[in-house]
């Protein structure tokens, strides 16, 4: 499996995707800056709190990297079917299920690592911005990390699992638009669910259930749709 992942990474283009991660994080920082600056300079608004800004960070990173995971799914998996290069891949002396699983592992790991980097950079930035420019309401306390860290871990874990849905839906008809639209629907659906939770992120039970349903659906697609060339 490790050998397969290494081979797939050649097509994945690590450098290109690291550049995208940096660009996405810079965009998030810019977005947060504009939002903080606006609430700071507008006399009719109150300054944003650390809690609300941290929620925005979670929303931004999950939105950007979930949508990007669907683009990766389309590029690494669905386009192999649409451009028929899958016939070449499947004629190699390799286990086909492991081959596709290897691609999914790359996408999931990339999503998890990028989101973690996004959280770290954006959280660090708001602490820095407040310390030097007093842009937020209140001051940063280490005790805040007791809420922030579990929230970030849960969000990253849930989004990593959810990054499988573009594959699940997109593979039904080997459709790139279906994969990308699925990621948007997943984001909205998740937002509806977590808005009802007091902690603004999924509980462990919700995370567990999401994982069970997602892996069950992915297994079904593996059995029924992965071997289907056309």
């Amino acid at each position: 499996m490790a050998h397969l992942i290494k081979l797939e990474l050649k097509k994945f283009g690590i450098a290109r995707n690291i550049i995208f991660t940096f660009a996405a994080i810079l965009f998030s920082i810019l977005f947060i800056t504009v939002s903080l600056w606006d609430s700071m300079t507008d006399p009719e608004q109150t300054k944003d709190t650390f809690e609300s800004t941290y929620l925005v960070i979670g929303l931004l990173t999950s939105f950007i990297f979930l949508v990007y995971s669907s683009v990766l799914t389309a590029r690494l998996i669905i386009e192999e079917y649409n451009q028929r290069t899958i016939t070449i891949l499947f004629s190699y002396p390799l286990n086909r299920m492991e081959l596709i699983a290897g691609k999914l592992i790359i996408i999931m790991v990339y999503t998890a690592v990028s989101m973690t980097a996004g959280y770290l950079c954006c959280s660090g930035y708001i602490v820095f911005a407040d310390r030097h420019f007093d842009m937020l309401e209140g001051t940063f306390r280490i005790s805040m990390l007791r809420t922030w860290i579990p929230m970030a871990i849960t969000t990253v874990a849930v989004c990593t699992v959810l990054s499988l849905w573009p594959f699940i839906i997109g593979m039904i008809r080997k459709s790139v638009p279906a994969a990308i639209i699925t990621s948007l629907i997943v984001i909205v659906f998740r937002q509806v669910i977590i808005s009802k939770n007091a902690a603004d992120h999924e509980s462990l039970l919700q995370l567990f259930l999401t994982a069970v349903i997602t892996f069950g659906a992915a297994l079904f697609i593996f059995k029924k749709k992965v071997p289907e060339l056309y």
Partner: protein
Amino acid sequence: MDHIMETSGLRKSYKGNVVVNDVNIHVPKGSIYGFVGPNGAGKSTVMKMILNLIRPEAGEVRLFGEKVTGQSCEIFKRVGSIIENPYFYEKMTARQNLDLHCDYMGFPNKERIDEVLQMVDLQNAERKQVRHYSLGMKQRLAIARAILARPEFLILDEPVNALDPEGIREMRHLFQQLNQEEGTTIFISNHILSEVDLIADTIGIIQHGNLLAELPIEEIHKHQAEYISLQVDDAAHAAALLEQMGVTNFSVLDKEFIRIYDPDISGKILSKTLIENGVGLESLGRSQDTLEDYFFQLTENGK
């Protein structure tokens, strides 16, 4: 006989439409097996089943004596193939595509890439992205990829499609060289029957999913009769004259063409008789049945 690939009772249907029915193919080791049939006859479907790209509904494929199943992997290290069109990672160069192929096949000798690029005459275009290649160049590159890992068995689905006559000849020589010098067994489909006739030593003819015949090319050549071909302005009149001359073994192909399967008849007497009786003679010549004639005899009987 030692067969490198065999199928028995192979069957496949799509939405109730049977596309391959009870196909039994036997590819002798070291042979070049020409697999011919009209478009939609089931050639590509059979080839995909051999490569385990689609699963047969019934029957089995045996490669190197081993039954091909969903779990068969290692066996394909010994197989090179081109199926349907030449597919590549279009944004990669020819060399990158071949390099990737070596990695997937577990073939360590990457110096062989230069060798195969030379063999298909693409050594000067190897740094170009494949999307800038013409279809003919892609076809050559697909051949290079198929032979790269020195396969013992080559499955080639219409490999000379889109090649110019010079390219077709070069590839024919390449396949013959691989077969004779490296002992590669080749299973090749081609709709250009004259091309198959030139290269294959065993022929399988498929139509409507049924294998109509499988025999050595010498067998076909044995049955290929010599004939006199006549082109006249009135075939019915000419046929009546032939009967008067006592010639019975002939067939009228259409309003103009007649074939006489009696090569002992003098062309001089024939032309004289026809002209003297007012039949306009456009041409007269001696020919021999080709694989194409055999193919049409067989497929028209099969209709």
